[in-house]
């Protein structure tokens, strides 16, 4: 069907680099990353560390919020030269907080050009509505403009739905035939699948991040949402796959018999065990994908959900 016929190798990926930074004392150090062919940037990165407030990861830590940075020149971004050489021009940092404690910062970097389409957005609550804090859209300029002029009340659209439900959500067919709230321009931009996730931070502020993937230059070709709340999986721990979509395998959810992951078993189990995001590349990944990012969402002192995307 749709999913099966579309498994052509994409022209290029929307995200160039994904990396994880974890606090060690008062600095953020490099924990993992998938750099693809950008080996020079990788070398520059693994040698780096950030204090609170330093660079993009340090800023996300210090300010306790997700940060979008477009254009590195003259900014607080510290690896500008290496990034420039790798053709990376924009970055999004998503902090992973467990209550007041920073567990890690996930940074994704993208190359700005006129051919990649997709969106990574950060929505923030202001006066009872979710407004676009900032976002990176690649070539989806019109969609960017529409998004800047859109706001979401609680319960409406992907961001509003995530905000109300306090759980990650995966939406299909954003543009085609369905009236995703920004569907017209989403359809025009070729956006197909949307993953929305809450980004808990210290304090009361609500943030929602969305990854909107287009078929030609996908953010991911497989998305998964795992529920790890004790209220859902019981005291034995682990997580259940509550939703997912895969270009090769189609729908990944199974109402009657959902797939389970156990602590420390497999990549999802590793996230459950460590409470940290995971970025891996190469042969360790199932289903023939080349890289994967798994991001835990902590709430009420436990890992509530894990979202994962594969390319």
């Amino acid at each position: 069907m749709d999913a099966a016929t579309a498994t052509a190798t994409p022209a290029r990926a929307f995200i160039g680099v994904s990396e994880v930074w974890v606090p060690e004392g008062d600095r953020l150090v490099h924990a993992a990353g998938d750099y693809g062919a950008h080996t020079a940037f990788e070398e520059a990165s693994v040698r780096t560390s950030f204090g609170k407030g330093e660079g993009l990861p340090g800023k996300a830590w210090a300010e306790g919020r997700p940060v979008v940075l477009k254009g590195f020149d003259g900014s607080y971004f510290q690896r500008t030269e290496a990034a420039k050489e790798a053709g990376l021009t924009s970055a999004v940092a998503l902090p992973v907080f467990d209550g007041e404690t920073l567990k890690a910062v996930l940074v994704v970097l993208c190359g700005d050009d006129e051919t990649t389409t997709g969106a990574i957005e950060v929505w923030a609550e202001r006066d009872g509505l979710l407004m676009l804090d900032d976002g990176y859209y690649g070539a989806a300029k019109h969609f960017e403009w529409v998004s800047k002029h859109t706001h979401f009340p609680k319960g409406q659209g992907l961001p509003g739905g995530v905000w109300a439900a306090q759980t990650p959500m995966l939406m299909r067919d954003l543009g085609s035939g369905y009236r995703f709230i920004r569907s017209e321009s989403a359809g025009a931009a070729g956006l197909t699948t949307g993953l929305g996730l809450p980004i808990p931070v210290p304090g009361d502020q609500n943030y929602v991040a969305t990854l909107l993937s287009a078929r030609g230059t996908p953010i991911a070709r497989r998305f998964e949402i795992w529920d790890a709340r004790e209220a859902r999986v019981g005291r034995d721990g682990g997580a259940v796959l509550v939703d997912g979509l895969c270009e090769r395998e189609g729908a990944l959810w199974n109402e009657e018999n959902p797939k389970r992951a156990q602590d420390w078993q497999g990549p999802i189990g590793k996230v459950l065990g460590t409470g940290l995001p995971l970025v891996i590349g190469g042969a360790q990944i199932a289903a023939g994908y080349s890289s994967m990012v798994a991001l835990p969402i902590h709430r009420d002192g436990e890992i509530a959900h894990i979202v994962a995307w594969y390319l």
Partner: protein
Amino acid sequence: MQKLVVIGAGMASGRMLEHLFEAAPGAWDVTLFNAEPRGNYNRIMLSPVLSGEKSYAEIVTHDEAWYDTHGVTCRFGEKVVGIDRDRKVVIGEQGEVAYDKLVIATGSNPFIIPLPGHDLDGVIAYRDLDDTNRMIEAARPGARAVVIGGGLLGLEAAAGLRLRGMDVTVVHIMGHLMERQLDEAAGYLLRRALTDRGIEVCCSANSKEILGEDGKLRALKLDDGTELPCDLLVMAVGIRPSVALAKEAGLETGRGIQVDAQMHTSDPDILSLGECVEFDGQIFGLVAPLYDQAKVAAQTLTGEASEYIPREVSTKLKVTGCDLFSAGDFAEGEGREDIVFRDPARGVYKRLVLEGDRVIGAVMYGDVADGNWFYGLIKDGTDISEMRETLIFGPAFQGGASVDPMAAVAALPADAEICGCNGVCKGQIVAAIEAGATSLEAIKATTKASASCGTCSGLVEQVLAVTLGDDFVLPTAKPICACTDHPHEDVRRLIKAKELKSQPAVMQELGWKTSNGCHVCRPALNYYLLADWPLEYTDDPQSRFVNERNHANIQKDGTYSVMPRMWGGMTTPEELLAIAEAAKKYDATVKVTGGQRIDLLGIKKEDLPHIWADLNAAGMVSGHAYTKGLRTVKTCVGTDWCRFGTQDSTGLGIKLEKRLWGSWTPHKFKMAVTGCPRNCAEATCKDLGVVCVDSGFEISVGGAAGMELKETEPLAKVATEQEVIDISVAFLQLYRESANYLDRPYKWIAKTGGLEWIIAQVVDDLDNRAALIERFDISQSVYQKDPWAERATPQYERAWSPLADLTKEAAE
């Protein structure tokens, strides 16, 4: 090969074909009719398709290739017009097909309430993919939708449309959502979750008419006159088995097509299964029993012995972020026992219903991890006597954690106001504790919390306990009743601080231990809620004692007394004549009361609406002699007649009574105005008494002349009638807002530590006095209504007469 014709390509027949092809591959030549122009898809996943969280492609169960592989002749989009049982053929629109065996799986039709306007453009029943697509088509951001029906399907539709950007209102005829699967407590939590998504929910709402304009939907009108404007109206009020085809073919039908345990209809060559059948008086709407039937039907076709046995079903709601689970029978019943667990902080409610040593039902909200385990216990009839004590904590439970009575306080946000008098929030108290104030006295000194009326001291102590942990020993307070650990004071304060506006909300958020309270707590909660939220809360007559429910005083023989109001104890010959006539007509005993009124005793319940109508007709209203509310304002004749009178005590009494009547109070409230210190109206043993003196008026409060005898204490001395009225209103309102239910004012005053605080509130602080008066007037705008006039209607006459009279029939 035998010829099998199947009418209807739904989930039941689809599953049956799977079983059949597995058991007897190649044995059957199958023709499959479907009125929808498509094959079998997972109908229960339509809601996520509506919301955009799934795509249609993902929910297709059998695609073209599957039908091909199994040699199924698909006649999709073709209606079956008849069955000729004699010739054993099914007649389709495109021609006949012969069968050896026929399976009817026509499913169900959505029930359309025949409201005026139900055929307008924009009114949709929610059943299949086409309905779903029509809704998606209509769901433009900013457009408005009304969903009639607060069951599974209706709520999923509402959540989906909301996610699509619509403004959605759910109209539900019953008192709480999903009443067939949930009890009231779980219904409350679900409602809260939906409201939090921006979905409006109207329960106990009766649709009356669908309004249109030029053939297009405009609004839904409710029977209370409310109009809900909408661009889309979804009806999701239930299903009816689709039996027309079977009936026409002469098969036996009741509510559904009647089948035996082998899924045979009354014709042995015709089977039926799914939502169209009736088995043993039951019809089916959930998928689990359909799958069981599918298995049986396949076995019957292959000649295997098999028997369909209905089993308990479980329910989940497909709204992302709403975790609920319901299974089995959770009605209370003979020999049944409830185990209730609530965790207000996490929004968790769990209830198990036990019968003997077996679990027979389970409802859970917020924490559904153990749902399937409980469901297993229900299905298997497992003996749970060994684990009864810890059962509610699930299979993994080890040790002895118990419900934390302080969870409600622990869950309060920092900005929740603990002390209403001094406006102190929880956060300030916590900050004071962290700064070293570790006792109630120290908190009073540093924050002023509980330093005034003191009713919040229990809560302040709980904040101390929650913040300090084991370092603080909590004094024990007497709870309202066995349903809760909280005393009245805490409940009152928390109703305000957490803005709890319904009984289920209070019971959930404060961790009630029973599912719906008892005769001790319910009247108290009903009073607190109507006093604190007069505009939002609806008075619940079923939570009132008989007198307040029937607006008359019950007597020991079951008859009632009726007492019209006599303003300030004044009456007229006309009123007296009407009273006399009523007394004769209804055979009443007549008594003059101590409150300067006339009591008519011995009235039968069914006569109440009639005698009220008669007294209303003479201009009289209810005297509220049966209420915890304002009773009388007793007066002396004052300056009009009395040679000692100093002021117009009668006139002032009438003014006070006209201002205050109809208001509900924690206990009864009696007043008097006497014209001089000789005190003929006995003002100094009332809840509030006014003694007129040459220079003005002395107001005193807190008297009693019942089992306890107590003289009033002076509240204020004022110069004008207006000040008397203002201070009286403010005092009454303060009493209404802060006293415990069933505490007369003298008890309440004692608990606040004497009159000092009250004088500051209603006499000295003019702004506060004005605010109290304003809140009183808001309440009066709802409650100052003559209950007699409201109830002297044919509807009440019917409701108050016997339901049936079997005195003749029973003699047969």
